[in-house]
């Protein structure tokens, strides 16, 4: 390669590719974290799904790929399941996960996915050594809106309850 081309090569290296905008970056990260939704799986399976940035030791797991139609059917069966009542929430948070742009070819496509999280203090517990822990009950409710052709639509909500214990130190 002659010197003129080498000089051009160097000049071109001086032009930096435009950085990704914050919106685009967020969209990409979200899509990577939630790749299973793009595969047409259920909201429940993907709730709180985070693809771990790989370390030296990678765990090998295999998750079956469900067809979009089957996923919608399973989610439809979960409709009508309501949150347990009777405990007043102390903290309320809502994370609007926004539109899911990847799944385009299914007959019903998700247009909005929301996760509502309620956490509440469920009291104190102690272990056999007398150490005290705060028991926290976390209720997550996944809600998804699907739209098909014309006026066809589907709204699905499903709760999930987890308990966490936090050591208490004085």
């Amino acid at each position: 390669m002659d010197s003129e081309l080498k000089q051009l090569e160097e000049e071109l290296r001086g032009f930096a590719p435009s950085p990704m905008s914050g919106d685009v970056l967020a969209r990409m990260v979200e899509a990577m974290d939630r790749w299973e939704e793009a595969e047409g799986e259920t909201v429940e399976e993907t709730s709180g799904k985070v693809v771990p940035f790989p370390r030296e030791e990678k765990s090998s797991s295999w998750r079956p790929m469900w067809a979009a139609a089957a996923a919608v059917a399973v989610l439809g069966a979960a409709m009508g399941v309501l949150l347990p009542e009777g405990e007043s929430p102390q903290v309320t948070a809502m994370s609007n996960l926004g539109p899911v742009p990847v799944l385009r070819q299914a007959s019903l496509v998700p247009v909005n996915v929301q996760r509502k999280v309620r956490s509440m203090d469920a009291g104190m517990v102690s272990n056999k050594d007398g150490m005290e822990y705060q028991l926290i009950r976390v209720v997550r409710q996944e809600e998804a809106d699907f739209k098909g052709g014309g006026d066809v639509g589907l709204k699905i909500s499903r709760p999930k309850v987890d308990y966490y214990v936090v050591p208490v130190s004085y």
Partner: protein
Amino acid sequence: MPDDESNNVIAAKAQDVGALTLDWQGWLRVNGPRLLLFARQQTRNGQDAEDALQDALVKLAKKVDEGTFVGGQEAWMPFLYTQIRREAIDRGRKDDRRRKREEHVVEDAKGLETTESGNWFLDSNADGEQAELVEQALKELPPKFSEVIVMKIWGDRTFDDIGKALGISLHTAASRYRYGLDALRKKLAAARIRGDI
């Protein structure tokens, strides 16, 4: 496992989730711009470029998560370049079929031409004209030349990597690079004569 130990595990996992998510973001901050540039070179408009890149990244995330990705982290970029190209080709074919189906082909084509594609390069000087001229010159090159130039100069890929990603030999990749660079020099020289630079 004792109770307090299991509690610590819970707390550690909660911290990890936040850190791990940030790692994907950090990796994309570093490598995303060059991948997006390649996607822009491969597709017809900015939206298609972002979609092609997103689909490629999702495929990578899936393979990494399933443990089926062959190779370490150093193999991600070659995989993504290959995948972006495939996605772009698929999109191009679908777009061609769609346009054939549509009645008003001319209006549709006009619409595609006016789609905002985003600047390929950062403006390195105050007026930003040079970056635009380089972008324009690359767009005017035959894609088989511009794709090699984009991968080589801004992707830091070897000719061997480029050949594998494009399905051509190392020598063909190097040859296309030289021809493309020469053609680019002529285009930019013409712009200099016109006083654009």
